[in-house]
């Protein structure tokens, strides 16, 4: 079976090379059959990749420890679900996953456009073929999942790291990969547009939708990872500004900028150069993110040993930057704006500021990540930055961004007069200021940044609420009907705008959750003998003894903490330690989430007294409103879905416009 898999992988490489070459030839000669052949090559490459995936899964399920990926990441006792998902626990296996998503997305994108953008698609195929060739080459020749284990074949494998045996960690890599990989599609479209010198509205639609998919996947992937860190890694937080976390954040920021900036190109024909730069940056950052995750070049809790693919990935990023820069500069005349920016008090300007701030934040994060490498190169000693650095820039760039989230949708195009500004912003500003005063009275003034963030959240929420309310009212004035009907109609007719507003609401929820759980949380550490209690922010916890229980492949030792609040019982917490059969140890925190307020009581077992007296060292945190962070993820997906939902009216209009043209040219 592994022979089949190996051959399949070489076949993928051959097919992607062919696709790239055929794409270039099809583009230059306008040969439709070559184009179809290139498209078919992607489907064939997908099939071959899936054969390779099945081979690896077969080896995993049959415990074939002659393969390094099986021996290093699974064991006989590992539950089947985790055995299957350990495909992406290994570096070579995850490369295979990357390849599967890439060939699949490329085939789909080419298939969707098989009757459109005829001059563009061969070059899209060529670029995608080039990218796929690179990754196929890595998987086939540099870091193959079919590599033999070094030395003798072990009887049992090393087992999966206990902290990875968690549903969130199963879902997080595929989701992130979906995000990283699908960024190739908009990039390929953008490069093809530059190569052919052709951009039109349909190109923009395709690019936008794929970017949206990538962006939604990256966002969801980050939240899944954050949730995993919260429940599994167990320090009480969910985001550590670890380089690998930042690796996903940077392309997400660039994609966010692009998704907004592209609206201006669509409506006003402006910011064309910006958009090309943003989409190239998003893709380059996505591959760079993969490089950070795999190369071990920066210290990270997630980082791997120096992986052989590191230098290749870096070279690929450099090549991508060089080629896209060259193409953009070459086509600068084509990217001239149709209109000028006439006033800084206009929606165009807010989008421009949005771009600048998002890019500034992405750059700040990038700088923080590469700073250790640069400082070592310059001074010989590594200097690292940590949370305070990132928090500073998050606040200083993030708060204005939050403000823009509320200002942008309400401000007029081209030039907003002072009268209209007063009229539209009166209520949001008043609400925000009174809200700020109220929060300050409630004692939340301890953190200026926190108070400002929460006030801006009120501002944005009111603006979004007004948009929905006024829009519904206008719809009813126009077409009658009940309020729910008008609302559904409103959203249906303008999915992008209102889906976007839902996403903005998700951001508001996220900011509230993050602000509350970081600026206003409480931490206590204590040593408790049996029967002793500790108090954290109104909760009383009593040590009710140390116990043991057995799991499928581990023994779990834990302390039972009886919780009470205001004298009445409030359940129990059982933080402890799992000792796996393979000898690995995993700390398991216990969290009690209170649903209405989203506040978490978070307990960590730090040590059990060796004299077996039942005494323990524990650390307990109260994280207010942290549940909102996860809720934000759900709302975020909902908004992205609304925005992505195809609009039949838009499709009809585009088709009709093209149809007019063809009818006229007598084709």
């Amino acid at each position: 079976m592994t022979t089949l898999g190996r051959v399949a992988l070489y076949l993928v490489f051959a097919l992607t090379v062919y696709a790239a070459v055929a794409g270039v030839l099809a583009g230059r000669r306008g040969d439709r059959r070559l184009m179809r052949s290139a498209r078919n090559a992607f489907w064939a490459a997908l099939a071959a990749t899936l054969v390779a995936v099945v081979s690896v899964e077969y080896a995993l399920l049959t415990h074939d420890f002659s393969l390094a990926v099986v021996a290093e990441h699974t064991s006989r006792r590992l539950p089947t679900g985790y055995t299957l998902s350990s495909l992406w626990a290994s570096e070579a296996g995850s490369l295979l996953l990357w390849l599967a998503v890439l060939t699949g997305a490329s085939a789909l994108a080419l298939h969707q456009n098989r009757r459109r953008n005829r001059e563009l698609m061969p070059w899209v195929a060529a670029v995608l073929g080039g990218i796929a060739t690179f990754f196929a080459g890595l998987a086939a020749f540099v870091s193959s999942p079919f590599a033999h284990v070094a030395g003798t074949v072990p009887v049992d494998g090393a087992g999966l790291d206990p902290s990875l045996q968690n549903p969130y960690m199963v879902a997080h890599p595929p989701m992130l990969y979906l995000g990283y990989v699908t960024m190739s599609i908009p990039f390929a479209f953008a490069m093809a547009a530059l190569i052919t010198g052709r951009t039109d509205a349909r190109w923009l639609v395709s690019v936008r939708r794929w970017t949206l998919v990538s962006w939604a996947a990256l966002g969801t992937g980050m939240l899944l990872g954050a949730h995993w860190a919260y429940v599994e890694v167990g320090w009480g937080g969910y985001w550590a500004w670890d380089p690998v976390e930042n690796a996903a954040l940077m392309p997400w920021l660039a994609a966010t900028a692009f998704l907004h900036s592209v609206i201006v190109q669509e409506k006003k024909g402006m910011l064309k150069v910006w958009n090309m730069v943003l989409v190239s940056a998003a893709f380059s950052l996505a591959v760079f993110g993969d490089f950070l995750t795999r190369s071990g070049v920066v210290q990270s809790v997630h980082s791997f040993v120096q992986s052989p693919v590191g230098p290749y990935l870096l070279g690929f990023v450099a090549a991508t930057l060089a080629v896209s820069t060259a193409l953009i500069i070459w086509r600068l005349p084509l990217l001239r704006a149709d209109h000028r920016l006439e006033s800084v008090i206009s929606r165009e300007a807010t989008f421009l500021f949005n771009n600048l701030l998002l890019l500034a934040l992405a750059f700040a994060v990038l700088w923080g990540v590469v700073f250790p490498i640069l400082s070592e190169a310059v001074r010989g000693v590594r200097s690292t930055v940590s949370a305070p650095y990132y928090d500073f820039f998050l606040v200083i760039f993030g708060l204005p961004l939050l403000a823009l989230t509320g200002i942008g949708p309400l401000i007029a195009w081209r030039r907003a007069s002072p009268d209209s500004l007063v009229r539209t912003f009166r209520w949001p500003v008043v609400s925000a200021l009174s809200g700020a005063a109220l929060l300050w009275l409630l004692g939340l003034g301890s953190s200026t940044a926190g108070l400002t963030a929460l006030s801006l959240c009120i501002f944005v929420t009111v603006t979004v609420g007004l948009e929905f309310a006024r829009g519904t009212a206008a719809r009813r004035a126009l077409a009658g009907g009940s309020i729910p009907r008008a609302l559904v109609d409103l959203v249906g007719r303008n999915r992008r705008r209102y889906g976007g507003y839902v996403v903005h609401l998700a951001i508001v929820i996220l900011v509230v959750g993050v602000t509350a759980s970081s600026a206003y949380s409480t931490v206590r550490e204590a040593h408790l003998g049996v029967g002793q209690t500790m108090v954290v922010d109104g909760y009383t916890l009593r040590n009710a003894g140390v116990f043991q229980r057995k799991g499928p492949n581990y023994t779990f030792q834990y302390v039972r903490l009886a919780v009470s609040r205001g004298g009445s019982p409030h359940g129990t917490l059982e933080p402890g330690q799992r000792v796996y059969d393979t000898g690995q140890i995993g700390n398991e925190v216990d969290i009690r989430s209170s649903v209405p307020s989203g506040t978490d009581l978070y307990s960590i077992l730090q040590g059990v007294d060796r004299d077996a007296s039942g005494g323990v060292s524990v650390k307990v945190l109260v994280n207010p409103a942290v549940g909102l962070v996860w809720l934000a993820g759900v709302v975020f997906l909902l908004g992205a879905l609304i925005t992505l939902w195809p609009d039949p009216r838009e499709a009809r209009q585009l088709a009709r416009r093209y149809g007019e043209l063809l009818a006229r040219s007598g084709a």
Partner: protein
Amino acid sequence: MTAAAAVAAAAALVMLAVVVVAWPFVSPEREQPEERLSDEDRRRLALAEARDAAYASLRDLEQDLRTGKVTEADYEAERDRLRADAARVLRELDRLR
């Protein structure tokens, strides 16, 4: 899976890939609308898009008026501007016909 079976399966996979990739060259031409656009067609398409964009902007402007984002005075000034833009585009389109 025996070695022979593996080789056979691998060979089958490779052959399938070759067939799929070569298919467009050996299958009969299917009728599909040719989308080779002349420069003039391209110009017409760009103008059609500009026309539709102007109409969309006018609709957006009306919506902005209804939801109170622009004042009456601003609305009228901008509407006249957009109408002039649309008219100019329509004239050019006519000229090309």
